[in-house]
């Protein structure tokens, strides 16, 4: 299975350990992983700010970089959703359409495509899961608390296979952390407050590690945790699934 590794721009620059864990994890599950070196960004920062038209350069580059893989896997629900919903190419729309159909967020790829049964990982900590909205409500990687429907969570399904992990139930299971792309600076006051409230929920429940499928939410929560000199740390799910 020929898998293209799609690494979000900010993960590439600020959280390389998350990308390394994703790569090693996919390799552990016998994927042949290719990493197009010319990749940059999915274009979401412009598009969500109302400048979708300016993201065409990113779209063309993405289409070129990721043509020819069986699957494209990304350790971010948000970037995956953006590609799924908005990737179009003026030069090669056929390839763009095919990419939209085979791009997967990491946890959904592990659960739905690889149908992972065993995770050879050990992580002896109390862990709170932050359900990132675009993965959850956009890609349906887990059930949403607003709907009257049977619960499920692909992230929790995977984390439950990790040895010695203790998953903690939060008071608000799927409230947004307030990152929201450029929202985090354009609406600084509300964004920070939302993040502080999310962190408080984890702390109240004695969480040691906050995890999730999107490093952007975790970067925001980490910024708040570090400002208040909290002992709680953030880890992407790839890092936990690849631990030990």
């Amino acid at each position, binding site marked *: 299975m020929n898998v293209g590794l799609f690494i979000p721009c900010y993960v590439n620059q600020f*959280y390389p350990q998350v*990308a390394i864990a994703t790569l090693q994890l996919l390799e552990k599950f016998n994927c042949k992983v290719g990493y197009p070196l010319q990749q940059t960004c999915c274009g979401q920062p412009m598009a*969500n700010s109302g400048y979708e038209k300016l993201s065409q350069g990113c779209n063309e580059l993405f289409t070129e970089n990721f043509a020819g893989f069986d699957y494209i896997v990304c350790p971010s629900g948000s970037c995956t959703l953006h590609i799924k919903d908005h990737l179009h190419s003026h030069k090669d729309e056929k390839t763009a359409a095919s990419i939209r159909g085979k791009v997967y967020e990491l946890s959904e790829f592990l659960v739905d495509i690889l149908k992972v049964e065993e995770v050879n990982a050990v992580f002896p900590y109390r862990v709170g899961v932050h359900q990132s909205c675009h993965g959850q409500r956009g890609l349906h990687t887990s059930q949403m608390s607003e709907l009257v429907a049977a619960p499920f969570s692909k992230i929790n399904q995977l984390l439950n296979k990790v040895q010695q992990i203790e998953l903690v139930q939060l008071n608000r299971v799927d409230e947004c952390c307030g990152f929201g792309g450029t929202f985090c600076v*354009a609406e600084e006051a509300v964004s920070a407050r939302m993040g502080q409230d999310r962190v408080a929920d984890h702390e109240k429940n004695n969480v040691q590690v906050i995890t999730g499928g999107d490093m952007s939410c975790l970067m925001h929560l980490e910024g708040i945790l570090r400002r208040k000199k909290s002992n709680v740390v953030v880890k992407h799910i790839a890092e936990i699934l690849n631990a030990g």
Partner: protein
Amino acid sequence: MFIVIRLNHSPLTIHHRPLPIHIIMTHNATHPQLATAFNKDEARVGWHDETLWWVRQKRDKAAWALPEWEQLRDTASAIKQNVLSNLHDYLVQFEQQALANGVKVHWAADAKEHNEIVHSILQQHNVTQIVKSKSMLTEECGLNEYLANNKVEVIDTDLGERIVQLANEHPSHIVLPCIHWKKEEIGELFHQHLNTPEGNADPKLLTAAAREHLREKFLTRKIAITGVNFAVAETGEFVVCTNEGNADMGAHLADVHIACMGIEKIIPKREHLGVLLRLLARSATGQPVTTYSSHFQQPNAGQEMHIVLVDNGRSVQLGREDFRNSLKCIRCGACFNTCPVYRRSGGHSYHTAIAGPIGSILAPNLDMKKYADLPFASTLCGSCSNVCPVKIDIHNQLYKWRQVLTEEGHSPKSKTVAMKVMATALAKPGLFKAGGKMMRWVLKYMPWLVNNKMNAWYKQREMPAPPEQSFTEWYKKNRT
């Protein structure tokens, strides 16, 4: 900044609550500015958030009590889809039925015409004092201000609306107009206006005082205005939902009943109420049904009944394919209660009659320039679309409004410049690599360049710790 500072020190601010909407509007403050002011009082934000979250939880319990909940939402959405596809025909049918029932029917193209029609009815009856039950349409049209300018006294009879009216404010929520008020503050307000004992905030006592105060108005006013929740095309009747019975009290005691409705309130048949009424109160407050769901079909002997059908931008919205289904809204307010941004910024920060996520997709249709900030007052988390009883894809429309507003030139120039720089850097792998490397170098060796007041991120959050190398650099060393 001027606005924010003014807001914090204004003598009109009571207990750090936001200012009345007309003050806000004259200052042209934006959502981020008003939300920043609201967030100065941290404890109050926490209280506001918890209060509305409690309402959201009540809604969840009510929804889970009905195994057919999602099917009800699908059905309601389909009913409303049919209405929007055949709006003209249903409106004509409704008018015919209403006229046959002896109701006077008026058509208003916009807010101004609506206000003039209402005023002309008052003038015909030489009435200068009226009672009005809850109607977000009249808020949208600015009817109270219009009538006040024409020397007409309007008494809002919904308790929450009366509270904000006494405080010279506007509702901060379409279902819970004074949700931003604490009971102690209401006690203080009632002491000032209704002579209740000083320092008494007993809800029972305050409600009884309001009841007595309003009773006199009900008994003496000759004209009553109500809103409309649903208007049935096949029968010409309309349904008004309240928990306080104030719409019924006003309409039955007055000589003239004027019902004001947006044209999207039409439903084809009475049987459709069996779907929509089940959803409305459960979504709004978690009640199985509103205490009063009153059907009005024809005037009582000796009384007059008027219906004012108002467009005010609705037919324009109907013509916008991407935003059309926002007209399905039944004004339950569920999207307000679930919205993490609304809960932490308060209704007045939206500086429009209908706040929250639904207001943010309705308002730009009325005035793009004035409301260009609202579609950005969201993280696009999508919770609003999930609670919506008629399945409006609110968060997708917020995204689409952002594109339209930018295309139409309602984006600040500085933002356009920044976005162009970003788009160029991200479309060229060489620039991206160089830029990323520079950013990490700055964070490591010159953090003061980034960690300062100019950086909104840094105000309440630390920047990420810069790693030694990017993933691409690691990959080149280790895998190629």
